[in-house]
């Protein structure tokens, strides 16, 4: 079974590494609505897809977090992207596949995936 020794080894390896904790003010925040309405409509797989992709692609300037009800229950799962110095982008009716597109297009290339945004979906 996993021991705490392994955790100690991780700490020892990391100690002395600089830039480990980048300033949170410079970070892009990706927020997934995880209240009952979000969870019921499949927010967990969306959240997991986002956090796995952000980790595997090494996007250290992106932080994925969860929040409560965003107030648009019929459009859940909802993902909001907050980039420093830019307007918030709200993606609605997300799936893990759409979330991965958002990672590749928006978070990596800086191009908003308009077709999934609330503005587009509301028409």
């Amino acid at each position: 079974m996993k021991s705490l020794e392994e955790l100690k080894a991780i700490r020892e390896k990391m100690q002395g590494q600089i830039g480990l904790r980048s300033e949170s003010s410079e970070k892009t925040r990706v927020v997934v609505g995880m209240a009952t309405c979000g969870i019921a409509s499949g927010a967990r797989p969306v959240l997991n897809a986002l956090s796995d992709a952000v980790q595997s692609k090494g996007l250290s300037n992106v932080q994925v977090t969860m929040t409560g009800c965003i107030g648009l229950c019929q459009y859940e799962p909802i993902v909001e992207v907050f980039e420093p110095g830019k307007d918030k982008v709200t993606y609605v009716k997300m799936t893990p596949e759409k979330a991965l597109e958002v990672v590749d297009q928006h978070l990596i290339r800086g191009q908003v995936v308009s077709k999934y945004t609330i503005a587009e979906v509301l028409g």
Partner: protein
Amino acid sequence: MLQELSLNVLDIVSNSIRAGANLIEITVEVDRERDSLTIEINDNGCGMTKEQLAMVEDPFYTTRTTRKIGLGVPFFKMAALGTGGSFHISSAPKAGTKVSASFILSHIDRMPLGDINSTIHTLITMNTQIDFVYTYKFDNKQFVLDTRQFREILGDIPLDNPEVSAYIKEYLEENKNGTDDGYQI
């Protein structure tokens, strides 16, 4: 209704987070002999007054402002009572809140526990300012994950650091398997 009980746990713990808790205890206990599954969530958040508590099991009670009804607690309660189990909340202002749900393990309407490890991993890595104590009991075996213990070892390395996050995932998987031998709950 939610598809699996691990999603109810995620949902009920979101209430604790919104209540400003910084210590949340989650216990999942399976006892095949007593044919029971018990889930308990204990937080040190803002708690509720007697009046609030009296209303909380009613879907038309919520203090949220974005929607007029609260579904988290009523869903969890229904899931438990639907198996002939029981449901209880106790709470006091400033002291915190304890939610406990018991299910008849073999009841045909009992929702599967589902991916409880994912719930715990998500909660820990997405809420690094909060400490979690997760206890998983299966018959006479058990394991405990206490983030305070992890933090003591890690110092200022955060729990959402990619390597730490991967460690926590494996810690949960290996310990759960070691406790229940992969028994499907």
